[in-house]
């Protein structure tokens, strides 16, 4: 008897759901990887199908590695989803070290019962973001947890990048007199996500600013490779928390000019309504640069010439302050401390 030709019924992506078998390492798991993940991320390194990816690296390069877990709720939000976010977020972490990102690794923790159609949507969005950024996903892993033990899907990504010679960017590099540059308007990501939370459900046209920032960073470093001292993306905790982190690392204070900080009117209005302060709301496509005073103009001009930095602004200066306070001259003419975010971002009630 001649053996029958191999036939595997394709995944029922339209109606199917993740089941425990998809994480068990058998045929079913292999099929999920082949038909859903590999189909989306397809590239020679991933296609090797080994336990890890063997990667070519530039000789003598200084490597940067960053990892980030993504647990956002809701999974889909205006301007993005957990897939695109998991690519942008980790690329940005590498870019904030002044590195050019080269490769991504991704781990998925899927909850039993999660619709395959949603998973495909997320993975395809992730693949689009990775292709647009020019950073391929070269290795990955999938696990399935029982229903009720996950929140649909969690994605953990790791990125590897290289730093060019002569670039030295670190949170401890800020010096008194340095200039603070911000690449654009604050708060869109946080407000877009909040607007989708079940308990709020307000209608808004505000979209997340989620974007990969390595192109912008490259343009800034081309304008001045040694004048950019600190780069940081103000994600959770917003601008306020990020600046406090840098102030602590560098042992300096900062003085902001509120009138120079760009915020979209619709974000300002949403924050007003919800009792939030845009300085503490998360961003996913903005960066702060601390530059030496003589390089600041050139770096700012390079930022403004890049699509992701068109609204870049000079928002303050680094000060000498043993207490490491971040202070702000208010629009109103007073001065106040801009403190760390405490606890979760909670709205005021009346």
């Amino acid at each position, binding site marked *: 008897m001649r053996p029958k030709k191999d036939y595997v019924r394709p995944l029922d992506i339209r109606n199917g759901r993740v089941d425990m078998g998809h994480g068990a390492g058998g045929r079913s798991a292999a099929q999920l990887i082949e038909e859903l993940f590999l189909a989306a991320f397809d590239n020679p390194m991933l296609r090797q199908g080994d336990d890890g990816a063997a990667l070519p690296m530039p000789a003598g390069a200084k490597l940067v590695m960053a990892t980030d877990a993504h647990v956002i709720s809701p999974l889909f939000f205006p301007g993005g989803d957990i897939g695109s976010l998991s690519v942008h977020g980790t690329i940005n972490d590498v870019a904030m070290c002044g590195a050019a990102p080269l490769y991504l690794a991704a781990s998925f923790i899927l909850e039993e019962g999660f619709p395959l159609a949603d998973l495909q949507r997320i993975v395809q969005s992730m693949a689009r973001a990775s292709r647009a950024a020019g950073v391929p996903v070269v290795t990955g892993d999938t696990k399935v947890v029982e229903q009720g033990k996950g929140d649909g899907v969690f994605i953990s990504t790791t990125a590897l990048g290289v730093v060019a010679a002569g670039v030295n960017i670190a949170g401890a590099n800020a010096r008194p007199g340095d200039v603070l540059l911000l690449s654009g308007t604050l708060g869109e990501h946080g407000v877009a996500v909040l607007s989708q939370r079940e308990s709020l459900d307000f209608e808004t046209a505000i979209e997340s600013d989620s974007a990969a920032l390595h192109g912008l960073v490259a343009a800034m470093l081309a304008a001045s490779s040694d004048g950019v001292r600190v780069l940081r993306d103000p994600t959770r905790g917003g601008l306020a928390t990020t600046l406090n982190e840098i102030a602590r690392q560098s042992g300096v204070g900062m003085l902001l000019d509120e009138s120079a900080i760009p915020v979209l*009117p619709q974000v300002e209005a949403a924050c007003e309504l919800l009792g939030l302060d845009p300085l503490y709301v998360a961003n996913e496509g903005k960066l702060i640069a601390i530059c030496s005073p003589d390089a600041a103009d050139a770096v700012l001009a390079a930022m403004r010439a890049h699509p992701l930095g068109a609204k870049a602004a000079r928002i303050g200066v*680094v*000060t000498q302050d043993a207490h490491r306070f971040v202070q702000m001259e208010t629009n109103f003419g007073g001065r106040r401390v801009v403190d760390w975010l405490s606890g979760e971002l909670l709205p005021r009630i009346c």
Partner: protein
Amino acid sequence: MKYIDEFRDGAIARKIAARLRAEARPDRQYSFMEFCGGHTHAISRYGISGLLPDNVRMVHGPGCPVCVLPIGRTDLAIQLALERGAIVCTYGDTMRVPASGGLSLTRAKARGGDIRMVYSSADALEIARREPGREVVFFAIGFETTTPPTALTIRMAAQEGLANFSVLCCHVLTPAAITHILASPEVRRFAAVPIDGFVGPAHVSILIGSAPYEQFAQGYRKPVVIAGFEPLDVMQAVLMLVRQVNEDRHEVENEFTRAVNRHGNAHAQALVSEVFELRSSFEWRGLGEVPQSALRIRPAFARFDAERRFGLAYRAVADNKACECGAILRGVKKPTDCRIFGSVCTPENPVGSCMVSSEGACAAHYSYGRFKDIGITAEATA
């Protein structure tokens, strides 16, 4: 933002500041209490104290709803979530109020309590509709501003015959608290607590009108200026208070005429009195028992009253001994007078309730103003 930016105009603020400097008599001190947390927040966030003359001092009052919530009340909400299996819904700031045994609603949630943050009492009602098999309790706190929505929610629950919804009512009343502060022995005994006048509540006054303040303005000879929550409102109100003090007047004046009239919102008042009645006494954090200062649910709506429904027994719990929240809420002490301010007690780890909400006197000072305590100036060196 149109209609809001007009009230945040720095150029006008500087003009009012110049008038204040011209009119405040250099030979005396002015101390004004802003009752509301909303004003405290505006003063801190916009740096208003820096614009006032040195002899005009703002004293932060007890009008921050989570600050005056006594430990025993939060304990009841935690008990409902952890021991009775109820879904407890509440406003955001309430989640972090310190309760007994090192707990708070946030920490009780981490121990498995089903505690959910809502933006409106109507959201709690919606949860009750969606989960008919669970008891859903709305932990209702706040002054007159948040009371009408709670009343409306209870009335809707009654109309719909919802069998699984109730309210743990902790609504409190502003005029009773102000009177209590003025009548408190230390305020009367020591001239050292010189409250020369009050910045009157904004949103509360929209509901109750300006008339309820007239009695104690006359009785205690203290001027009251009702003011909006925008920074220019506060500046203008302070100027009006300085003028009243200079002219030895003690009237109720209304700076917030765009929203407040003498008698308030009659429709909301009727709704509140349909559902609620006065409690003979209620414990306030920092102020202790204050007679006729809070509301409870009327017997006609008893099945929506979580205290009756679950047979809850209130147990008062003393504050941490080192905590000065009480004296701070009465305006007798400043946050920096407290030994644990900024060391043991911080917004990350609040010991006292004034450190919880950004409307609380301690949190506002810690988050926005503490650079002043150190006397540093942070100027660019280059």
